[in-house]
């Protein structure tokens, strides 16, 4: 009698959001192939529709707060944390596509593949947020990275774009090496790749005897390597070197997409690994992440001070923000998770908005994004200047903007966890950061124009900037609904819990 093959129970609802977006992206590739003419805007609109459908599917399968579903041998989980994250990621992707549609044709780099690639990357991000198995984490990271290698090099007439793609590829491969080696060591030590089982393994093996069991030691070393792999993706200092060059070289909408989307997804996966699998090692990873977060906040913000180039400034500022988010995830308590999601959304609104403003000022065939172009913007385009000022204030964490509450929740979570020194470093570095955000505002409102700059507006940009401004201010004044949302977004700590 042949051995019986047991097919594990499959709950398609768990992967429904991913399934939708991947299917949509694949079909869109085909549709694009047969689409007549050179105009590819329709593909972009169809991609937006795909994101909307995915969002609806996500809402439909959303589990009740505090409950979760697992499937595929517990490799994927659908919990309220995952669905909230998915919705935020879909919003980020929608912004990225909205600001791309006219950008691509204006700069003569319009190709239909662009939009499915964004969808694939978004699918990879969703996978990262939902996977509870290290192999799937790796799959998510690679899916995300490979599409982004292409997207960063998408501005092929520019050498800097190709350079950015190559740099990102090389460092990405390097990081993947760390990641996969770390995963292998963890498997060697724990005998499993399942996050829940790794956590259980550590709990039992650390409880037995006083000596440090060799299995746990392997997991510790593996965990450190996995952490290094993630540090590249979320660009924590000193693993951030690629960030400014890659952001500067890639098409601006892609830089915007990476600066919030990739980071958010990688942080979510890291958060899950830290609090589901490696929580018994908190005494080890807490000081390490604390040092990294401090370095990142200080270095990112100090480096941003020196940048006359807006795109590089935003790149360094995103490095600085990674430091704050790290504080949110390392405190790992309930308030830590909440603050991470809130911060991510507030940061996404402000950063996407700021990049969108940058795109309105980006000239064909030019590569300078000098802060000089912002000088005197107030006198000629007051609404654009007010929008940019709102984003800058939100990124700096000045009330009444969503960015302020983001910082407040992160610092509150850190204080609750007893990390008073980190709170101090956080407030100190936000005082430094205020310097360069304020500089942009001053140039816009208080200086005379340096040269003639005519912004280009189109529907996608206007809507993105509008939503970002309104969101930033409304959540800065009335964060209550958002707080309820993130409070109900709980990470599943056990199978089917």
């Amino acid at each position, binding site marked *: 009698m042949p051995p019986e093959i047991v097919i594990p129970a499959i709950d398609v609802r768990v992967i429904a959001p991913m399934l939708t977006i991947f299917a949509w992206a694949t079909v869109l590739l085909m549709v694009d192939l047969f689409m007549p003419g050179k105009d590819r805007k329709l593909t972009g609109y169809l991609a937006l529709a795909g994101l909307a459908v995915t969002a609806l599917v996500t809402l439909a399968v959303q589990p009740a707060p505090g409950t979760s579903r697992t499937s595929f041998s517990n490799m994927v989980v659908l919990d309220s944390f995952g669905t909230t994250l998915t919705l935020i990621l879909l919003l980020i992707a929608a912004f990225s596509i909205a600001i791309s549609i006219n950008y691509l044709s204006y700069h003569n780099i319009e190709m239909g593949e662009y939009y499915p690639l964004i969808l694939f990357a978004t699918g990879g991000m969703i996978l990262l947020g939902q996977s509870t198995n290290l192999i799937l984490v790796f799959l998510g990271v690679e899916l995300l990275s490979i599409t982004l290698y292409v997207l960063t090099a998408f501005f092929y007439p520019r050498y800097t774009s190709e350079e950015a793609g190559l740099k990102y590829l090389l460092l990405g491969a390097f990081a993947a090496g760390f990641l996969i080696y770390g995963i292998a060591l963890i498997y060697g030590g724990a005998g499993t790749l399942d996050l829940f089982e790794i956590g259980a393994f550590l709990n039992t093996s650390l409880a037995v005897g006083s000596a440090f069991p060799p299995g746990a030691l392997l997991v510790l070393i593996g965990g450190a390597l996995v952490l290094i792999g993630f540090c590249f993706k979320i660009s924590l200092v000193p693993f951030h070197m690629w960030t400014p060059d890659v952001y500067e070289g890639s098409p601006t909408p892609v830089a915007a997409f990476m600066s919030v989307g990739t980071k958010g997804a990688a942080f979510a996966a890291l958060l899950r690994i830290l609090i589901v699998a490696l929580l018994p090692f908190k005494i080890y990873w807490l000081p390490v992440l604390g040092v990294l977060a401090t370095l990142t906040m200080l270095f990112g913000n100090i480096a941003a001070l020196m940048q006359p180039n807006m795109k590089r400034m935003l790149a360094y500022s995103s490095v600085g923000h990674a430091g704050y988010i790290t504080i949110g995830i390392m405190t790992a308590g309930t308030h830590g998770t909440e603050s991470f999601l809130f911060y991510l959304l507030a940061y996404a609104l402000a950063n996407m908005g700021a990049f969108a403003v940058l795109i309105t000022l980006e000239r064909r065939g030019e590569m300078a994004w000098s802060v000089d172009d912002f000088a005197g913007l107030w006198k000629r385009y007051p609404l654009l200047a007010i929008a940019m000022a709102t984003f800058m204030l939100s990124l700096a964490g000045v009330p*009444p903007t969503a960015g302020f509450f983001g910082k407040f929740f992160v*610092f*509150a979570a850190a204080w609750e966890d007893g990390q008073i020194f980190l*709170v101090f470093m956080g*407030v100190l570095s936000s005082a430094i950061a*205020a310097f360069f955000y304020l500089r942009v505002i001053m140039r816009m409102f208080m200086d005379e124009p340096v040269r003639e700059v005519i912004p280009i507006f189109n529907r996608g940009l206007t809507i993105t900037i509008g939503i970002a401004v309104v969101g930033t201010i409304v959540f800065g004044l009335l964060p209550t609904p958002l*707080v309820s949302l993130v*409070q109900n977004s709980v990470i599943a700590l056990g199978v089917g819990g």
Partner: protein
Amino acid sequence: MFPYLSLILWLPALGALALLATPREQHQTARSIALAVSLLTFVISLALPLRFNAADPSMQFVEQVAWIPQWGISYHLGLDGLSLWLVVLTTFLIPIALFATWNSIHAQVRYFQILMLLLETAMIGVFIALDTILFYLFWEFTLIPMAFMIGIWGSGNRIYAARKFFLYTFAGSVLMLMGIIGLSFLHRDATGAELTSFSLTQIMGDIRTGAFALEFGMEQLLFGLFFIAFAIKVPMWPFHTWLPDAHVQAPTAGSVILAGVLLKLGTYGLIRFNLSLFPNASEWAAPAIGILAVIGIIYGAWIAFAQTDMKKLVAYSSVSHMGFIVLGIFALNEIGITGAVLQMVNHGLSTGALFLIVGYIYERRHTREMSEFGGLWTVMPIYGGLALVMVLSSVGLPGLNGFIGEFAIMQGAFISPALGWGYVAVSVIGVVLAAVYLLRMYRETFMGEVNKPENAELKDLSGGEIGMMVALLVPIVVIGLFPTLFFAPMQASISEVAQAFRSVVAEGQ
């Protein structure tokens, strides 16, 4: 109950919104609307002292609505004897400042008025917010309109001054944010409550009843975090360097509000937060802070004496006068604090008036150098007379407002066990110096012969300018002659602060 506080708080902001709808080029319309809104706010705010129950030391006109219930953050307003006059001072000075822009602000008029009204909302909010996060929100929001006013409508080195103003205060306030967070979590853990509470009255009440006692080291840390934020705003020596820059570059209306109200946010915070929440640390720090205050008094006066630019002189005199207020607060007794609060109002009136006086002559001659003037009294007699009264009020002449406040502060410092006669002895030198530099300014500009031909033809004050001066003169004289009228409503609240202070400190020993 009728929500007086919300009405006074949001009316200016609504006015700012309405201004957005006016046509950009109609400067006169924008000015009139802004002035009307601010006058209306002032009139409504007069209901506060009238309906205020002077015998009740607790918060009055209280409004509380849940805002972020998950964190225990609420929209919580209230007024007590400490904040009553400061709110009225704010609503009183804003129309004067707006009126002063009539002749001095000609570019982007509408936006200036909008910023001024937004600033009014933010400043009133700071004085009446009883939730620490709400307080922080208003506190930070005062920065944006003021920085823009300096940066867009200022003179010369305005961008540098605006940036310095913003960054100094912002650096201080983020430390305060850390303090606010820490305070609430420590309060939650000490009282065993499930949720954090950011209600100032709740935390203060628990401190007074002993339900929430801080460990001394932690109390010192929190005290320090709040103190730095407020000391920068006051500004106390050695955090004062932003002030002369900001004042010199700011337009006249901006200077009036900056000196008149914004600096008081700092001293108000010192009483409301540092003194009320951290009594033991306050007592521990009082001698050192007293020394800083005295240094500020002497230093500010000394540097003011060396100035040739009138606006700089008045700006440095603020450093000196604010030093007195801090000295009164850290006398830690009723009389000292009462004197300090009254002196906040006095300084707002007389320094506001002095900035207007400098502004008038600057509009006529476009210089503020004292050597450019002389004998103005003969050319502009009304101006000379009014300026003399304001100078004397600032010097602290008995019969005018400044005397009462300074006297109470000195008395408080003298009997205070934390400070003592040594502090008073040195700070008296500051009073003498104030008379020296202010009267010297008066002598050089108003007395003597008219020695410059440009000055011979200057026009005396217009009706509107006289009106503003008279408006300021009324409270100056009334406070000077009938100080009890102003002392009475604050008495109950301040003696409660002082008594609670003594009892908490006594318990700790």
